[in-house]
């Protein structure tokens, strides 16, 4: 059952099921998203996490930050781990052998963008196609942050990472990020959405909707990374604000693979340049020879916004 979260006090309530004493970087957005997922429901949770920042920061033996059932297997298979647990729940429910038969339960998998867009995509796609009743949350910080900032297929054009570094003859990453939300929508999943922790009301609503929706749901959560995006740890929320107000991270949902709803329309749309300018990873784009990348960025964001609005109108 969903909890009522109407104000910031309720939003920021410490959740007993996710200890604050974890090892995530100061300013990391992961913990805001995870805490809120665990805060927004009163149901029992069976959780899984792919290898990544969240996993290595929350379960270093002999400690654990999780006061809920939690499993980590490998880099790629959190979706399948929780799908297996869900299958076990269904089997035991049918056979009448559940240890807590009347306890409501939700199944949730977490992964970073590396484990979601890249190495774990097959496992995610398979689990969604099979229709397990679970929610998959991608903590998207657009880089393999846990291993020291290598590019993933979520890394946007122009970002300097440790495997797509900007240099004398390179402006960094050459490709725009993969459209994971569109791809998951194309699976026909009943609920797919993009969220950002700064827009917390929108995020809580979508998290609750994904938990309450039967079947496989997918949430792509923007998780600004102070370490790899290179901004001051105190600026996580302000950077996130610029991300959504410049439409770099538009907030929307897709229902049953068809109905697309834009859930946040900025009153003043900021130029992409403003978003790029506040992060060290894009610093080199402001050299005269890289101006074309910023122009390309703006064109891509405009085209994407146009596409989302048309999809919303079309209702198909």
């Amino acid at each position: 059952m969903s909890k009522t979260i109407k104000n910031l006090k309720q939003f920021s309530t410490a959740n007993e099921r996710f200890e604050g004493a974890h090892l995530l970087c100061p300013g990391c957005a992961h913990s805001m998203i995870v805490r809120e997922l665990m805060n927004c429901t009163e149901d029992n949770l069976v959780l899984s996490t792919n290898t990544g920042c969240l996993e290595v920061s929350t379960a270093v033996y002999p400690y654990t930050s999780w006061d809920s059932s939690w499993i980590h297997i490998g880099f790629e298979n959190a979706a399948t781990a929780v799908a297996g647990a869900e299958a076990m729940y269904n089997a035991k429910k049918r056979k009448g052998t559940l240890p807590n038969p009347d306890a409501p339960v939700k199944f949730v998998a977490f992964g970073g963008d590396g484990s979601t867009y890249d190495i774990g995509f097959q496992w995610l796609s398979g689990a969604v196609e099979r229709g397990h009743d679970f929610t998959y949350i991608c903590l998207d910080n657009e880089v393999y942050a846990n291993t020291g900032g290598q590019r993933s297929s979520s890394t946007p054009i122009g970002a300097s990472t440790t495997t797509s570094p900007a240099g004398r003859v390179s402006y960094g990453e050459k490709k725009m990020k993969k459209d994971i939300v569109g791809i998951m929508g194309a699976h026909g999943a009943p609920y797919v959405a993009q969220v950002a922790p700064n827009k917390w009301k929108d995020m809580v609503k979508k998290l609750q909707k994904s938990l309450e929706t039967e079947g496989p749901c997918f949430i792509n959560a923007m998780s600004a990374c102070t370490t790899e995006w290179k901004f001051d740890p105190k600026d996580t929320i302000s950077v996130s604000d610029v991300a959504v107000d410049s439409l770099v991270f538009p907030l929307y949902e897709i229902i049953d693979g068809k109905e697309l709803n834009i859930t946040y329309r900025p009153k003043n749309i900021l130029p992409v340049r403003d978003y790029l300018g506040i992060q060290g990873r894009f610093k080199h784009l402001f050299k005269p020879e890289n101006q074309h990348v910023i122009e390309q960025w703006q064109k891509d964001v405009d085209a994407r916004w146009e596409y989302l609005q048309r999809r919303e109108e079309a209702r198909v």
Partner: protein
Amino acid sequence: MAEKMELKEVEVWDGNMAYAQAMRQAQIDVVAAYPITPSTPTVQNYSKFLADGYVDGEFVMVESEHGAMSGCIGAAAAGGRVATATSSQGYALMMETLYQASGMRLPIVLGVVNRAIAAPLNVNGDHSDMYMGRDSGWIHVATYNPQEAYDMILCAFKIGEHMDVRLPVQVHQDGFISSHTAQNVRPLQDEDAYDFVGEYQEKNAMLDFTKPVTYGAQTEEDWHFEHKAKQQKALMDSRPVIDEVFEEFEKRTGRKYNRVETYMMDDADIAIVALGTTVESARAAAQIMREEKGIKVGVVSPRVFRPFPYEKMQEALANVKAVATMDRSAPGGTVGMLFNELSGALINTDKRPVLTNYIYGLGGRDMTIENLKTIIEETNANAEAGKLTVPTQQFSGLRGPKLSFF
């Protein structure tokens, strides 16, 4: 409740049907599986049982073998009986998760139908997959025919789920020679089989919300070694439980299994050591060579080769003068696994028999009685000379010039 299946006293089953029937009778909660030759029929038979109402657990047809074992791990950690089957490339793809299953001490049962590993691509039986995973922290049980495949799957649940063990168990049978060859199998009736296997006992179940549990934590140099040592202890401590389960199975069925199987070893001067269907061929060849040539040859096979039956192999081979170890896996630049294991087990014994190694049967090449007769004769010559009369390692059944490097 699942329907009961009436079984005849003697059924004609191939090894895959034997696996599937034993899995059905164990009333597994979750099977997560993916097809691959030659273990595919295990999964197909099981899904047909489900379609006909004989299974009331969940059957999850995943997108890869890695996914199959990942799903099994999630399901087992949730708290219930779990099994799957695979072969060869699928086994290789599962490899990462095999270590994770054992490291998390989850009593999953994996029915392996052994097959070669590419390249070159080959669908036939050899032990390359079995050898690849032998150190993955699972209990490994070898079988020689469909009857044993059936019996050992039932025993595997009881061993792995035992509260003093809690480890995953692999049962192996040879691709095609056992998996696709219909033979007489004497099954237990459903109630009897389930009574033997017993109810699943939960331990640290993720679905027990009164006691949240963290699976798959990280340990670095401060704790990892202690965890792996505990895992090794659990594997070694499983030996008396395996013996108990085999005894209980004998009481119920009259079929006696041992961690090391011996054949005509009482007066043997020499021994063949092998795994899988070759054990049956070697027994036939031993009988012939005793009758035809008067060579006192016996056959020894580690039924359970992890935990390796070190002392039992020493005992079984205590009085022989020469031993031929037979490895059905490409040795990858060294001697075969059985040669290595036996060298280790026998080096500190009083008699230290002359030890040779035969690589054979790769990619489904037949191991014939004629090949085995040659091996027995060579081993006998070693015993009589008290030293090697042939190279340490040879390739048996290989076309072209003779190969030996050691």
